[in-house]
């Protein structure tokens, strides 16, 4: 076969293959292109919202602003990041995303880890922030349209979906995640390791309360809650970091914040750290009630 014909055959065969794969691909477990747009929007958007939700992965995977604010005229967005800290940098970031024209509110998911030295590095946020301009452009404007080329994994091909964490990016900044292979002790070893020799930074801890007081004087309503996990996880986090939840609540409310007291025993996680999808919906509904939003 002449080279020209080989090249033509290769092009035709490849196009046919692409069409067939697009038509018959298995159902996605997650979308790489949607995920890249998701994080790029969160980091680089200039859009502002009436209500911001912020914290670490227990927040970005664990609360849906659309559900919390259902039935209201308020706009909301989940600005949580992986290992999102309560650093001055992130507090400044939140201030730039807040629409103060109506009734600005900030809802913080408090975990001991978000006050630790390691967390204060804000590595995930900075990774997204520091992407080159062309990468941001591609992720923001182009990636959404490339979903047809999302990766297909062997798990999807072989039908081994049960033990995989499914993820889907919501338009409200909530990343829905769930795993049918529930292991409520799964994350303990990981947290044991990351909290070892990783104390709460006292200077930043103090600065956090100063910020809450400042927001209160500016008319911003600040709410906070501790995302539900397991009793074992809470005990580990408190022991390793010295976090005193009651002392935190007292100080937080003294600065003008409102603590949302959840019945954490009612919620189930899939890995000991992150809530299952239906639990997130329930939690979001409870947060709505506790915030007293109309």
């Amino acid at each position, binding site marked *: *076969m*002449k*080279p*020209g014909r*080989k*090249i033509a*055959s*290769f092009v035709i*065969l*490849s196009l046919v*293959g*692409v069409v067939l*794969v697009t038509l018959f*691909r298995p159902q996605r477990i997650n979308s*790489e292109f949607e995920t890249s747009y998701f994080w790029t929007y969160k980091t680089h958007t200039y859009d502002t919202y009436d209500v911001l939700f912020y914290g670490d992965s227990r927040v970005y995977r664990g609360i849906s602003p659309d559900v919390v604010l259902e039935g209201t005229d308020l706009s909301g967005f989940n600005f949580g990041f992986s290992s999102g800290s309560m650093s001055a940098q992130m507090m400044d970031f939140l201030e730039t995303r807040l629409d103060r024209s109506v009734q600005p509110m900030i809802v913080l998911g408090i975990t001991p880890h978000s006050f630790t030295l390691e967390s204060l590095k804000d590595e995930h946020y900075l990774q997204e922030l520091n992407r080159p301009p062309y990468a941001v452009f591609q992720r923001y404007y182009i990636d959404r349209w490339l979903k047809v*080329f999302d*990766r*297909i*994994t*062997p*798990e999807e091909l*072989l039908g*081994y979906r049960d*033990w995989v964490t499914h993820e889907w990016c919501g338009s409200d900044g909530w990343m829905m995640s769930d795993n049918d292979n529930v292991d409520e002790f799964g994350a303990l*070893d*990981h947290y044991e*390791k*990351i909290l070892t020799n990783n104390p709460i930074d006292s200077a930043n801890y103090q600065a956090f309360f100063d910020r809450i007081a400042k927001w209160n004087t500016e008319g911003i309503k600040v709410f906070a809650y501790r995302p539900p996990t397991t009793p074992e996880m809470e005990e580990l986090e408190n022991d390793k970091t010295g976090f005193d939840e009651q002392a935190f609540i007292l100080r937080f409310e003294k600065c003008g914040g409102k603590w949302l007291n959840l019945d954490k025993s009612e919620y189930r996680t899939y890995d000991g750290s992150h809530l299952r999808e239906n639990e997130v919906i329930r939690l979001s509904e409870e947060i709505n009630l506790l915030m007293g939003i109309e």
Partner: protein
Amino acid sequence: MSFVFYAWWDWRFLFLIIGSGLIDYLAGWMISARPVWRRTFLILSLAGNLGSLMIFKYSMFFAEVVEKVTAKFGFPIHLQDNIPEFALILPVGISFYTFQSMSYTIDIYRGRLKPVRNVFHFFAYLSMFPQLVAGPIIRARDLLGQLAERRISTGLEKWNGIKLIVYGLFQKTVLADNIGDLVNKAYHPAQLETGSSFWWWALIGFSFQIYCDFSGYSLMARGLAKFMGYHFKMNFNHPYLSTSFKMFWQRWHISLSTWFRDYVYIPLGGSKKGLWWGILVMLFTMVVSGVWHGAGMTFIIWGFLHGLYLMIERLTSWPKLMDKHVLGRMASTALVFLMAMLAWNYFRADSVEQATGIYQNMFSFHRAEPYFQKYINAFVFLWLAILIEIVYAVYKNSHQFRHMFRSLHLDVVTVSVSLIACLYLRGPAAEFIYFQF
């Protein structure tokens, strides 16, 4: 176009490659024009190239070593804090283009090459974009002649170029990146696994990840060049099918190993000054090769281990004994892979301590927690990579298989399937491993 490609990464370092290139271009002329001063100009060229490598690649490492030594003797000094900021950035491809440039001036010095007149041809050779950032290291005498002629690629060259590009992309994005998911998580500082079998798989995984990553890039570079009508020599030739370490280094990163052979090993005497001098020079060459790969003790140990393997081979000639029978050759292949794989641990580990910890896990025979499900994606592609090597070995040794493949034009099918795999089965995005050099 090559300069635009390079400047896309960081335009400031374009001046470095132009500056060091100009030194070598002029040195080449002076070596040829002033025979009395040829050694001086050669030294100038080498100093310029090695100097820029020292500054941008090794300054932090040497500063760290000096600080540790002086601290031990009781007069601590602080060098690392005084290193200028620009010296902390590693210019992409510096290890490759400096070696390429040095080979130019050394070959002129040896009388094997005439200096090129056209400065644009020289820079086209030095900075040719397909191979600029991660090799292969092209010899001046191989490429300058091609650059001097007007190249119009034939249909066959275009087709072969497309094949190489697609196969390279497949190796890199489908095999290396997917396997890399297991390896990166294994070597992450937060990794808790202590089970032996997990670490054996992690190391087998890295062995194939680095091979597929680097071989994939080399194939793409060769394919792009071929598509444009230029011929680059093969850089990887299925090294894990080697039956000896001598053969392994004739098949792994061929352009680099031949560079070290021609410009370090042979000039130092090679094997011509006796067995033990040859072994000493070989050890030295392999250690220097390790240093080329990275400014760290782990790379030095990796290079030394390979020097040790070659030394044992030279002293015992064990591959020749096993070569007499097919089972012996299979055992040799397995042994060479095993020893190379164990050495890769130092190449991948962040520190000697981490590498040691991994060996302890590997040989502790602890039972692992179930991990197969967690890494099933990586395992599927690792087994695919192993299967591809086995199929290649069969293809190479079977005339019927080769005849059938060619007569049915199955290359059209394999290239199409590879391209579709690149689109849909690619792994999580990861940089080329060798970009760090």
